[in-house]
């Protein structure tokens, strides 16, 4: 229960056996390769990098093709989505099944066919776009009811068409008034420009052009024969035909939808295959032999040896030894009880432990449970959570990660129910609590504040004692005394010293506490910075260490959130009830609205309370608790499998 013991292995095999070996190891799954590329000492003795085979490029291409199919076909996916899909979950395969299935699927014809349709579709869309642009260009001239070819075929006169900025309209008109043989018309206008047409005798054409240019005229030549209106309707007909073709393409593509689940399997398989080929990047080689190093869980040594033996036909050299305790490169795999494993995500979120530390998961779980409940604290909310999570766990086919997450909340719901019971709160008091509850949050908040801080004391002392445990386990008894023992004395002494200010205690308690506190503080000053070079540095460092006691005060105060969040959740719930109650007095319609306010409001508050409880408990765990003993920073154990997206891989 904790960090899984690791062994590291060195394996020498022939180059030619590599592919088969990797394949068998991927089936085995529990192998973490060390990257030997960074090991300069091995390179100095003449070992070379293993060049990645060209098949990697091929695989990448195949993955791209599979992804292409999936991207296109998922638009036509008829399978259930949402709740129902979650209920069904993903299909589960083991590695051999997946391999067999994926190898039997030939997706290339599907790819070719799909690509054909899609290219055609894109070409059609392009054509439609071009037509639409032409329509946009023509539409200002729609009012012109003469076929354009006529305009350009006059013998005696010249026609100019184009745009002029709106603000120059009057000036242009004035200018043109002076001409004799020119007809001028504004065909249409938009936000900035007017669209003008001039018809003038050829003798005057040049002057006209000059005038137009002076008014920022920009000429438009229409490359059409008929009237703009007719041309536009022709374009529309063309677009309609093209759109019909696009639809045909879509229909054709949709008929391939049955292949989607198959291609998804291929996709996930290819990702694993790619991982397998890429693994060779971690190895080094001589002319004929590959050098492979890595880690395996210690209790799998025999299985591993067996796998290697059969994969390389008995020709190999394998050395397995227990991993070094203080080696930072040892990968971390956590194994916990059925209860505690659901809290592993919290540990991973902070940082995985180093190999010489302990797994904090089982240690943080009980307090997480208690604190979460105290912040959620409502019988109604707890029961809703319990029913919801139970329903999901029983009815849904979840993959490992989500299942643990739901299970996490399933356990937490008991705590919420328990505290809801102590607080006597059902949906913020909509149903009166039948018996007298232990606490009445609205009145006993001082008591609850004291309880919260007391929980904080226990939590922090617990954290400190874990620190002591780790040190004693490693044989550093003095360190345990200096770093934890003295703090215990100082803190307990200080509490005993200050407590008589609040409650009546015999005077002797104060005296004894004072002595304990002084011993503790003196110890911290003398030994807190024992690594310092000079005496002055040591005392100065020690005093600085002692200053850390202000941090402890902050830590204890931080636990007041246990009370505050429980209370604010309760108050918000009861004010929702109050509002619903006020509306409900207004007759039948009032009752309907009251129900909406009650259900909506309580669900909102439920979500908010749970979110608050989740993150604030994480904070207490990470900052106040972990700060006392936990460092973390280990590397995760990479299973020799790729994350699958469309299936569950056992």
């Amino acid at each position, binding site marked *: 229960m904790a960090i899984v013991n690791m062994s590291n292995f060195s394996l020498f095999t022939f180059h030619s056996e590599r592919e088969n070996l990797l394949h068998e190891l991927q089936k085995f799954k529990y192998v973490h390769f060390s990257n030997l590329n960074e090991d300069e000492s091995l390179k100095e003795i003449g070992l070379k990098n293993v060049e990645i085979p060209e098949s990697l490029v091929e695989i990448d291409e195949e993955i791209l093709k599979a992804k292409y199919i999936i991207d296109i076909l998922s638009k036509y996916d008829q399978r259930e989505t949402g709740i129902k899909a979650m209920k069904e979950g993903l299909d589960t395969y083991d590695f051999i099944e997946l391999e067999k299935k994926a190898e039997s699927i030939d997706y290339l014809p599907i790819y070719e066919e799909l690509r054909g349709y899609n290219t055609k579709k894109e070409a059609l869309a392009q054509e439609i776009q071009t037509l639409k642009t032409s329509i946009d260009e023509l539409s200002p001239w729609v009012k012109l009811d003469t076929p354009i070819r006529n305009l350009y075929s006059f013998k005696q006169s010249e026609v100019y068409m184009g745009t002029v900025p709106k603000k120059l309209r009057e000036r242009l008109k004035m200018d043109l008034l002076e001409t004799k043989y020119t007809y001028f018309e504004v065909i249409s206008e938009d936000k900035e420009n007017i669209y003008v047409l001039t018809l003038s005798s050829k003798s005057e054409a040049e002057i006209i052009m000059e005038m137009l240019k002076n008014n920022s005229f920009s000429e438009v030549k229409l490359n059409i024969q008929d009237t703009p209106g007719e041309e536009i309707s022709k374009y529309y007909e063309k677009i309609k035909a093209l759109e019909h073709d696009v639809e045909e393409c879509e229909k054709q593509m949709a008929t391939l939808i049955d292949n989607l689940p198959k291609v998804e399997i291929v996709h996930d398989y290819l990702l694993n295959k790619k991982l397998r080929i890429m693994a060779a990047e971690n190895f080094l080689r001589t002319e004929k032999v590959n050098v492979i190093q890595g880690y395996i869980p210690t209790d799998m040594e025999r299985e591993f040896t067996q796998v290697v033996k059969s994969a390389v036909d008995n020709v190999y050299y394998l050395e397995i030894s227990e991993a070094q305790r203080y080696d930072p490169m040892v990968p971390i795999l956590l194994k916990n009880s059925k209860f505690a494993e659901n809290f592993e995500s919290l540990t991973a979120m902070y940082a995985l432990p180093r190999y010489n530390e302990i797994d904090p998961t089982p240690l943080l779980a009980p307090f997480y449970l208690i604190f979460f409940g105290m912040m959620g604290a409502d019988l109604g909310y707890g029961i809703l959570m319990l029913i919801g999570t139970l329903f999901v766990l029983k009815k849904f086919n979840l993959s490992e990660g989500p299942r643990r997450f739901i299970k996490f909340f399933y356990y937490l719901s008991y705590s919420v129910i328990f505290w809801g019971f102590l607080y006597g709160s059902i949906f913020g008091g909509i149903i009166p609590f039948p018996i007298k509850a232990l606490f009445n949050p609205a009145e006993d908040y001082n008591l609850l504040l004291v309880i919260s801080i007391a929980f904080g004391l226990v939590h922090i002392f617990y954290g400190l004692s874990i620190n002591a445990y780790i040190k004693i386990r490693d044989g550093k008894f003095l360190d345990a005394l200096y770093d934890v023992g003295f703090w215990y004395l100082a803190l307990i002494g200080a509490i005993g010293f200050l407590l008589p200010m609040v409650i009546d205690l015999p005077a002797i308690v104060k005296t004894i506490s004072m002595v304990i506190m002084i011993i503790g503080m003196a110890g911290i000053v003398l030994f807190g910075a024992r690594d310092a070079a000079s005496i002055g540095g040591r005392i100065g460092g020690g005093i600085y260490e002692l200053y850390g006691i202000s941090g402890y005060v902050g830590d204890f105060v931080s636990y007041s959130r246990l009370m505050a969040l429980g209370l604010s959740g309760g108050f918000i719930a009861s004010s929702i009830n109050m509002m619903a109650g006020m509306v409900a007095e207004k007759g039948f319609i009032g009752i309907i609205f009251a129900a909406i306010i009650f259900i909506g409001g309580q669900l909102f508050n439920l979500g908010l309370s749970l979110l608050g409880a989740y993150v604030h408990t994480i*904070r207490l765990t990470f900052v106040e608790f972990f700060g006392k003993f936990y460092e973390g920073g280990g590397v995760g154990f990479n299973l020799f499998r790729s994350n699958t997206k469309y299936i569950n891989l056992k």
Partner: protein
Amino acid sequence: MTFTDFAVQYGGVFFAGLGIAVAVFFSGIGSAAGIGIVGEAASGLVIEEPEKFGKSLVLQLLPGTQGLYGFVIGLLVLAKLDLGMSLAEGLYLFAACLPVGIVGWRSAISQGKVSAAGISILAKNEEQSTKGIIYAVMVETYALLAFVISLILTNAVSF
């Protein structure tokens, strides 16, 4: 009725009412601003990746709690309102409302900024987005402390 008479007779209820207003106003303004900041950042994200809407909503919700704390304190003081309350009691309740109002106001805005930065974690590295939530919650601690003090003050002294 002179102004002094008025202050003596109704000053208590006036200041208690003003306290409610301060608790609700300021924390509400802060939360609205904080939620607004996160909302703007989140909208940019949802254009490209609409499937992250749910997670971004959680981040957006975080600076909203200050307004709720102010609201709760407001309700508690509301329950104590009485036309005949003394000027001293009114002023006392007014003071009790200040922590949640003022700390709620500023902390919600700061928390909004942290949450908005959390949105960029969500955009670039979705798996780590819970850490953004935790950063934002660090800010909320101080709003909670102010809430606790306001809560205790509201009930600590009986006139």
